[in-house]
């Protein structure tokens, strides 16, 4: 197993995941964005302001713009996933290539996206204040970073406990440590509440659900597809059967 191969595989898999997340977001995410923009326009109409000249039309933003952003995001996440996989493979208990990919994708989804999302969820247009974007971006990135560091530290602790308490207890203790420490971090960090009182609740709910679904599609595709391809290449590359034996079957 070579890092270069894994990296290329990760980026290709990420591209495929980005494509699926594009389809998902176009179908289920765009209605929320359109609803938010309709609210925004009602506001500016009531205030008697004109919308101004659009630099990029809504038609481009909601199709190609959305697609390019999600494809590039998929490629970047897929590549970073591959690097993490190169480190994790053979180092998380004795998980098979496929199980390692799935566990890593699930863990990364939790630590990188879902947990920060609980504190600072995705916001549709017109539901946050323009002037605080710097502050909100900073807080969001800090929480993502803290979450990833705590997840890595908890995993390291789990690996040290594994020989003494077994896989089940080590995983429980590591998860427990992460839950407790990230809860403290999230409690301490400032809360952002800027959603206008009259922002349509259904639009906000649909948008956030779609944002969550988009990440589920992305990480699930990466975890499953990367695991499948890696498992297949390990089986193919061993004519004498030595590596087939060393790769446990799930």
């Amino acid at each position, binding site marked *: 197993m070579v890092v270069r191969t894994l990296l290329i595989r990760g980026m290709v898999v990420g591209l495929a995941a980005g494509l699926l997340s594009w389809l998902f977001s176009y179908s289920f995410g765009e209605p929320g964005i359109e609803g938010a923009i309709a609210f925004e326009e009602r506001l500016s109409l009531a205030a008697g302001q004109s919308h101004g000249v*659009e630099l990029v039309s809504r038609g481009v933003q909601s199709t190609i*713009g959305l697609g390019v952003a999600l494809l590039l*995001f998929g*490629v970047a996440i897929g590549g*970073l996933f591959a*690097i993490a996989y190169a480190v994790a*493979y053979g180092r998380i208990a004795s998980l098979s290539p496929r199980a390692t990919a799935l566990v890593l994708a699930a863990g990364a989804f939790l630590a990188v996206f879902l947990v920060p999302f609980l504190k600072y969820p995705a916001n*549709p247009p017109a539901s946050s204040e323009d002037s605080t974007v710097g502050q909100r971006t900073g807080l969001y990135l800090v929480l993502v970073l803290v979450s990833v560091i705590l997840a890595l530290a908890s995993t390291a602790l789990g690996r040290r406990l594994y020989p003494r308490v077994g896989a089940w207890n080590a995983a429980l203790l590591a998860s427990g440590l992460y839950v407790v420490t990230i809860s403290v971090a999230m409690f301490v960090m400032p809360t952002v509440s800027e959603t206008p009182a009259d922002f349509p609740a259904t639009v906000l709910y649909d948008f956030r659900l779609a944002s969550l679904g988009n990440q589920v599609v992305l990480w699930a595709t990466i975890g499953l597809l990367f695991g499948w391809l890696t498992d297949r290449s390990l089986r193919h590359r061993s004519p004498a059967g030595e590596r087939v034996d*060393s790769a446990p079957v799930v």
Partner: protein
Amino acid sequence: MAQAVPVPASTPIPLRIPLREVLPWAVFAGAILLSLLYLVGLDQGATSVFSGQLLHEFMHDGRHLLGVPCH
């Protein structure tokens, strides 16, 4: 004594990639991929490497749905 013959473990620990092999890839590819994430998610928002709003406006819907603070 068939029972005394050591049976190969059914689930041996898989091969590992030495960390010093991963490190250069992690540094160089990691830097490029993180800059890509920055361009997709953050530039022309809270901070700007490229001036203007084109990148921000083009990626607008993706940024909102990816959950990064957009505007």
